[in-house]
């Protein structure tokens, strides 16, 4: 199992970052935090662009165990030798080179230490949909196209780890979705571990399987993404929400709905045709349901326009001023529900009570 | 650069511009503050650099000796610079050149009075080293010197021209030609020799006397006399005063003083001239 052992410290004028954590490098790890939390700094430390980092940073992948920073041994590996890629928020394409020359820049300098065969240039171009843009100059590209080139360029350098620093921040919504799909595809196809920094939890939730949360220069949470979001919700650190990964069952095209499997129940969400479904594999869809979008009934609703009703048991009851945060477990999945304290009292809700939760199809949100 | 720094830079630039103006207008103005007489116009004397110190002393003598009083404004520069300034309208009263060509040219172009043209001093060359005192006879020293020699540029400086004549007389010009450090005037030659960057220099003896240094005189027979001539300029408003001063300058006491200041003894030179007049036309290049 590849991992990144971080035990570093960075001190600037009014900022102090101190991380001691071991992050596993499988799939995509999200790094979430508000402005000033230190997430970009952490990325720079890993990339080698932060000269004031002290401590120890060791990357353990299948081939080697490399100390990238070791202050005691006076080791500080330069960024160009770390074999780590970085996609920046601004694409930073080289203005004096064409798109193709930009792509080749990384490829020409790859370290060639991968066990896999070298990446095929054409394959990456097709994957990132840049076929028609190769001969163009950088100035002629749109924002979304520029980021795709930046991504492809970083990939062609064949890094063993890809860092992404708010790569979607400068894009419009449509391009955001496209990039998210692309990143997911790339990760799976190349089996390339990624660290994805963002201040948008929604973005991260769509991609990452692990989540590292930073606040004021320190790690506050690390673990499976749904669990961490769960914790964040419980700690009132974010808007209460339920984060899920569910398998898609099928489409109800004539009704504009997609069906997701939840144990022996199902959840209906707005039709999502962007998901390419393969008959053999079960496509998994990540979605978020805000706690304020779910309501509770004592009896199964029979004639309601609200399409989603799930049966479950109340497992926790948290009063919060005039609200109550309920955790309801349906078919093994915990759902967070916000209701007024008044309703909770009216319905006499208590822990272990069997209830039904309801929410509209539209409440099931996904970025893709 | 910040705004403050830009301002400082501009001020320094203006200062620099004033200081490093081209040689064409780089004359130094020297105002004698002791004798201020607000009613009278000063007597503007343009003097070649090498004679300036001597001139000042003579003026002091004049003002203490004579009944009349001169308030001088002394303009010091190279003869060439002063000449150009006069040509372009500078309002000097008296011009003391280091050569005889320029006064002659001024007369020919009707800028100066022919009657006033006369030789006020004869230049005396000296061989000097700032590194070792010269103990040998200068002619032998020049012959033996294998290194470089500093002289004033023969094409533009009268002392340089004389130095070239000396080397030619000694049949050494061809030998020295590639080893010369040429100064733009005798003043620079003196400075260059003084810096010890060159072993040996042919300088003006008056400079050595002024600075209390010891060199070896180069016999005047080896070169054409360095006639330093003066003229009174036609544009002058003060020609009476100028005439008076010139008379003083040319009297025996003053001439003796001039010789003591490091210029050639008049008698020696006159003998040579007498010898030349017999067969030669007085040439000026």
């Amino acid at each position, binding site marked *: 199992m590849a991992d990144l052992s971080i035990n570093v410290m960075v001190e600037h004028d009014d900022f102090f970052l101190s991380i001691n954590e071991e992050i596993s490098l499988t799939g995509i790890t999200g790094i979430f935090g508000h402005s000033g939390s230190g997430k970009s700094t952490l990325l720079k430390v890993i990339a080698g662009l932060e000269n004031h980092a002290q401590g120890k940073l060791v990357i353990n992948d299948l081939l080697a165990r490399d100390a990238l920073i070791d202050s005691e041994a006076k080791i500080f590996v330069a960024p*160009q030798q770390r074999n780590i890629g970085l996609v920046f928020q601004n694409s930073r394409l080289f203005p004096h080179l064409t798109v193709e020359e930009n792509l080749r820049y*990384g490829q020409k300098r790859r370290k060639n230490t991968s066990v896999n065969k070298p990446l095929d240039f054409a394959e990456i171009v097709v994957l990132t949909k840049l076929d028609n843009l190769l001969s163009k100059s*950088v100035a002629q590209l749109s924002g979304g196209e520029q980021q795709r080139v930046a991504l492809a360029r970083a990939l062609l*350098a064949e890094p063993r780890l890809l860092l992404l620093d708010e790569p979607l921040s400068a894009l419009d919504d449509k391009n955001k979705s496209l990039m998210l799909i692309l990143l997911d595809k790339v990760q799976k196809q190349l089996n390339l571990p990624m660290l994805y920094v963002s201040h948008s939890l929604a973005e991260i939730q769509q991609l990452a399987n692990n989540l590292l949360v930073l606040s004021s220069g320190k790690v506050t949470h690390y673990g499976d993404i749904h669990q961490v979001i769960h914790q964040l919700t419980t700690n009132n650190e974010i808007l209460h929400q339920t984060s899920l990964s569910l398998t898609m069952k099928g489409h109800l095209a004539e009704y504009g709905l997609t069906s997701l499997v939840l144990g022996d129940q199902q959840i209906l969400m707005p039709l999502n045709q962007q998901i390419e479904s393969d008959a053999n594999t079960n496509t998994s869809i990540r979605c978020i349901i805000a706690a304020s979008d779910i309501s509770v009934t004592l009896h199964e609703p029979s004639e309601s326009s609200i399409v989603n009703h799930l049966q479950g048991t109340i497992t926790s009851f948290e009063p919060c001023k005039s609200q109550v945060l309920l955790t309801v477990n349906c078919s093994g999945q915990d759902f967070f529900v916000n209701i007024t304290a008044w309703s909770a009292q009216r319905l006499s809700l208590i822990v272990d009570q069997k209830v039904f939760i309801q929410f509209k199809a539209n409440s099931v949100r996904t970025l893709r | *650069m910040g705004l403050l720094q830009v301002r400082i830079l501009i001020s320094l630039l203006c200062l620099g511009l004033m200081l490093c103006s081209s040689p064409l207008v780089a004359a130094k103005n020297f105002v004698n503050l002791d004798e201020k007489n607000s009613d009278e116009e000063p007597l503007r004397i343009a003097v070649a650099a090498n004679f300036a110190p001597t001139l000042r002393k003579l003026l002091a003598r004049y003002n203490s000796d004579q009944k009349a009083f001169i308030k001088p404004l002394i303009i010091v520069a190279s003869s*060439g610079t002063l000449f150009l300034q006069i040509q372009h309208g500078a309002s000097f009263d008296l011009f003391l050149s280091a050569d005889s060509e320029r006064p002659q040219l001024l007369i020919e172009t009707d800028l100066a009075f022919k009657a006033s043209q006369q030789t006020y001093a004869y230049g005396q060359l000296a061989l000097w080293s700032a590194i070792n005192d010269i103990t040998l006879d200068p002619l032998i020293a020049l012959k033996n010197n294998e290194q470089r020699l500093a002289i004033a540029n023969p094409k533009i400086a009268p002392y340089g021209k004389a130095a070239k004549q000396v080397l030619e007389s000694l049949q050494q010009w061809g030998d020295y030609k590639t080893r*010369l450090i040429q100064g733009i005037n005798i003043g620079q030659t003196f400075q260059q020799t003084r810096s010890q960057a060159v072993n040996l220099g042919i300088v003006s003896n008056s400079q050595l006397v002024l600075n209390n240094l010891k060199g070896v005189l180069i016999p005047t027979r080896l070169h054409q006399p360095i006639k330093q001539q003066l003229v009174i300029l036609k544009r002058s408003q003060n020609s009476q005063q100028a005439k008076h001063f010139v008379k003083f300058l040319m009297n025996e006491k003053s001439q003796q003083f001039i010789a003591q200041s490091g210029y050639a003894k008049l008698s020696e030179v006159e003998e040579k001239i007498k010898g030349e007049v017999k067969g030669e036309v007085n040439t000026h290049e």
Partner: protein
Amino acid sequence: MNSTPPDILALITTLKMAGITTIILMLIGTPLAWFLAKMKSRGKVFIEALVALPLVLPPTVLGFYLLLLFSPQYLPGQIWQETTGQQLAFSFSAIVIGSVLYSLPFVVQPLQKAFEQLGDDLLEAAAMLGASALDRFFTIVLPITKASFITAASLGFAHTVGEFGVVLMIGGNIPGETRVLSIALFDHVEAFDYAQAHIISISLVISSLVLLSLIYLLNRPNKSRLKSSKPVTSQPALPDSVISKRQK
């Protein structure tokens, strides 16, 4: 050498001096400009002032001190004499050294400005793609700041050709070695040889105009240039000091 007309010889000497000076300046000016561009400490201002000094110092001041330093009286002159066996004062090497010092800001300032304008973004991206420092310089910095390099070299060259005061002090007017065009011009004027003086002057004016026009042409904002996502363009900026001095 004896058969070459003296003014042609002066021209050759001038070109040699300016050429060698420019090469030296590009070699030492580039790292110096880079160092200044990346420097963040307070000492930066002091070094910048030092580099800019020749802009405001009268050339005769610089020449005067150099003459002293190069003479055998002082250490630099002595060291030179010991290592090369030649005297430093009144030599070709002396005027090259003097020119390098005197034209330094004209080379360093445009380069420094260009490097500062380039910023760190593209260089960081290149590093993450595996490019070493030298690699980044040749594949990113140089191509993008190309025009500034040409400007710096041209300014350094032109300024050196026009130099008079420093060469006057430390040159010694030796034909073929230190008698450059500006000195030759002065000689002609002093010797009333105005015809030759005009020839030299007009040639200098014309060649300077041509060179400067080239520089300003290169510095025009060029609309067909490639733009990146960041407002970094290959348009070099003339430092203000140069613009104001050229307006003299």
